[in-house]
């Protein structure tokens, strides 16, 4: 495109066929993307160090995300296991107890009823707590008899279970009832707090990633000031000059994301061993879920996007600022 001399043709960029021009546009972008990899390769140590910093910064929020995700899965298992504990009034006779048990068992909301008598409870407490001998000094069993009620799945949500609890507490033989969902609610409130904290921490770390990239790109722009001035003198547009820097930012982010993924995979592999050990001791099955493929893609897209964003910030500030001046 010649501005000052209409008769002049610049055949390079303006070949007549728009399809061909589009193809050339992508080819040139590809060339510049590859060229900026070459640029990184020229200083492998410092590039790798920067990428490692990014990788570690990204690994932390990713790990937090996995913690939150696994915690969520664990809690979704607990949520449906709402259990209502009913404490009997003192001095309720054996036959009355049996009646109550039968009555509760007939409720359509109730799945299962278990009776733990005061003596059984004391026995259980002795074995589990390890206070066995000390407890034998008590002249009277301090523990009440307890009825454990497990609601049907339909009533195991916190609201449904609470409704059922209200009903059960009306029974004259019942002193009071306790819904195990209340501690679950407290737990989930705490977990929500942790989730929020993790989210805030994650956002801070992502911000750090963008800033690290912005600073790296800033330094590389200032290092190549001379080159930028020359490019401007021979007629390069700002868009042309900034493109390789933007690509460099994207590469930083992308490779940083990959490093983060490797870190997280290593952490998972490391923790899984100890977790299996723990699970076998608890006699339950615990599995860790790692990053799914779509989460992996999100991680890579996010890190590349942050790379672009950081680079863009630097480019807008510095490439536009540099003007050829001292000479000519």
């Amino acid at each position, binding site marked *: *495109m010649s*501005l000052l001399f209409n008769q002049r043709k610049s055949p390079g960029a303006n070949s007549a066929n728009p399809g061909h021009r589009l193809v*050339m546009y992508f080819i040139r972008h590809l060339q510049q993307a590859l060229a900026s990899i070459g640029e990184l390769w020229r200083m492998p140590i410092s590039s790798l160090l920067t990428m490692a910093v990014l990788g570690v910064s990204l690994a932390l929020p990713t790990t937090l995300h996995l913690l939150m995700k696994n915690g969520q899965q664990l809690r979704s298992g607990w949520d449906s296991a709402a259990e209502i504990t009913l404490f009997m009034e003192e001095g309720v006779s054996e036959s009355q107890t049996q009646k109550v048990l039968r009555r509760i068992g007939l409720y359509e909301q109730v799945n299962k009823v278990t009776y733990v008598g005061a003596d059984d409870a004391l026995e259980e407490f002795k074995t589990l707590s390890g206070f066995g001998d000390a407890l034998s000094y008590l002249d009277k069993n301090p523990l009440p008899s307890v009825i454990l009620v497990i609601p049907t799945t339909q009533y195991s949500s916190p609201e449904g279970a609470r409704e059922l609890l209200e009903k059960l507490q009306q029974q004259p033989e019942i002193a009071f009832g306790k819904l195990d969902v209340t501690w679950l609610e407290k737990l989930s409130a705490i977990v929500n707090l942790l989730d929020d904290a993790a989210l805030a921490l994650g956002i801070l770390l992502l911000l750090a990633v963008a800033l690290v990239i912005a600073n790296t790109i800033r330094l590389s722009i200032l290092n190549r000031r001379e080159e930028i001035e020359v490019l401007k003198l*021979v007629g390069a547009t700002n868009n042309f000059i900034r493109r390789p820097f933007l690509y460099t930012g994207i590469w930083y982010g992308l490779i940083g994301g990959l490093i983060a993924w490797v870190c997280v995979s290593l952490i998972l592999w490391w923790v899984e061993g100890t977790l299996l050990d723990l699970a076998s001791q608890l006699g339950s099955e615990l599995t860790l879920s790692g990053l799914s493929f779509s989460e992996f893609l999100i991680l890579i897209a996010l890190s590349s996007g942050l790379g672009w964003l950081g680079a863009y910030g630097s480019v807008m500030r510095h490439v536009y600022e540099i003007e050829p001046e001292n*000479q*000519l």
Partner: protein
Amino acid sequence: MIRFEEVTKIYPGGQQALNRVNFHLQPGEMAFLTGHSGAGKSTLLKLIAMMERPTSGQVFINGHNLNKITKKQVPFARRDIGMIFQNHRLLMDRSVFNNVALPLIIEGYHLSDIKRRVAAALDKVGLLAKINNMPNTLSGGELQRVGIARAIVNKPPLLLADEPTGNLDPHLSMEILKVFEDLNSVGVAVMIATHDLGLIARMKYHTFTLRQGQMIHDGLSSSDLRESEFEPVI
């Protein structure tokens, strides 16, 4: 080709570099711009290259008022002007080929075109054999000629040179001037800023002389130059 109308340039800080300068460089003309350092030569060239804007007055290139060229259009306008610098301003970490190819890469030429045109430009300055050299293996005169090859590789109708022979001995200077004369003979307008009066004394070229920001001489070189308080260099 280039026309200045009452051009004044005052830098921020109050330094007056050009004072109501008028001149006209004809299409296809080769001319020298002379004057002491600080007389305003560089400022004049900067105004043509749109590295500075005039405080008042107008600069025209090929009839286009440069005041009407927006910041976004400046790069495109610069592609019509080949610029040559005293310190050549080559990129030392790239080969001669890549340096000369720069303006073509920017304009998005095909690689085959780039190879052909770079070879032609280097041939014109007599450096085709050094196409794959790195700049630090070349002499000062060769570097300057690579700079000229870069300036002419996309065949601009106008060449600006700022002290192109500033660092060279007289023999090399004449070689460089010869290159400019060859280019001029195929219709390229050339404007050369220099304080090397010995160089231009022997030639009959249009000469513009600046003193303290004012155009004090505008005519064929150079018999009356000595009166205008110049001591020829060399």
